[in-house]
Structures are given as C-alpha cells and as structure tokens.
C-alpha cells in the first residue's frame, strides 16, 4: 500500500514531442505528489508538485494531471527538448516528509 508504481521505465521522444510519464498509488491518505528531475551524476531536484484538491497544475512546459478517483497522476512535458533528457521520479507522501518514490523513468529527447 506504500508503493508508487511508475511507468514507463524508459522513454524516447523526438524534439518537440510530448513526453508522458505515469504513476499510480494505493494509499488514499497520500496528499502530496511531487515530481523530481535528476540529471546524470547529480541528485534529484524538485520539478513540480500537486495536491489532490486540484486536477491539474502547469508550470511552463511541465504539467501534472491528477486523477484522484483512479489514484493516478502523470507528468506531461510539452515541446520536449534535448535538455529535458534526464531521469524523472514521481513520489507521494501523507503530510509527512517521508516521500515514497517511484522507480524512475529515463527520458531521452533526440533532436
């Protein structure tokens, strides 16, 4: 019940395309859903986050879509760029700071 399932494991997108990464959770008590971005050899950094009281949050080219009834949330990267190539982690927590992370998605954007 504590797991966060993330898919796909890897994703290849052409420059300008849309990248979509999906996550699903079981624990209905989770109330904070962040996405982290990690470049090779670096630590992850917060990219964007959402609370369950909204169904979508957009920051620039990055959008989180949240479906509370399905217990799913996804990250959409519009107009994907080679600089977006990184590993992306979804996560969830229950008003505490012990984030439960997904297994990560390696995104490669080719020009």
């Amino acid at each position, binding site marked *: 019940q504590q797991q966060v399932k*993330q898919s796909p*494991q890897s994703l290849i997108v052409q420059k300008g395309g849309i990248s979509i990464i999906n996550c699903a959770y079981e624990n209905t008590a989770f109330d*904070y859903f*962040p996405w*982290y971005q990690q470049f090779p*050899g*670096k*630590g*992850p*950094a*917060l990219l964007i*986050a959402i*609370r369950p009281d909204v169904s979508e949050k957009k920051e620039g080219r990055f959008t989180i879509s949240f479906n509370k009834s399905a217990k799913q949330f996804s990250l959409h990267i519009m107009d994907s760029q080679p600089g977006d190539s990184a590993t992306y*982690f979804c996560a969830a*927590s229950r*008003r*505490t*700071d*012990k*984030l439960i*992370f*997904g*297994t*990560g998605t390696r995104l490669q954007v080719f020009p």
Partner: protein
Amino acid sequence: SQTIHQWPATLVQPVGSPLSLECTVEGTSNPNLYWYRQAAGRGLQLLFYSVGIGQISSEVPQNLSASRPQDRQFILSSKKLLLSDSGFYLCAWSVRLGRGVRELFFGEGSRLTVL
C-alpha cells in the same frame, strides 16, 4: 542560502572493509536529514532519516547504520561492506512548506563500488 555537501563523491572499497559517508547542511538549523540509496531500476530507497541529534529511524534492515552527531551532520556507516552495498547514496534535507508539506533537497551523491 542553504547548501548540502556530501563526500566522498566516489568510493571504491573491497568487500569487508568499513564505510563512512558524510553529509553536512549549511544555512539552516534543525533540518530533517535523510539517506537514500539509488540502484538501477529500483528508484530511490529511503535508508535512514533523522529529525534531530541522535535521533535515527531506519527504514530498511541492512548492513548499514547512520548517526547524527551534530545538528547539521549526518553520517552513513558500515563495519563490513557487502557487494550488495554498491550504489549511489544520496543525502537530503527537508524544509517545511505550507500545509505541512516538506520539500526535499538532495546532495550531489556518493557513488560506492564494492569489489
């Protein structure tokens, strides 16, 4: 501004040898501190977290231990390394945002290879 330092960045150790990874945070007081391990295809696994000096919670039983001798210092240790301890170790600290949410800030990581 707050910064987090983690060292060493890279470490190659023989099986059975001891381990000490250090992490310090600057620019904040009484942070929550964390050790994560990242293995290929397994995401970020929380190993230990600490809410204060001497207060350590272990998330996964294993060959590792953690200590917090000072407010902004967090140490990951092992007395005898196993091959399975190889991985990318990340220290992190958290800050409380609104409505009880905390954001995690990660260090640059320490890559450990056990041979």
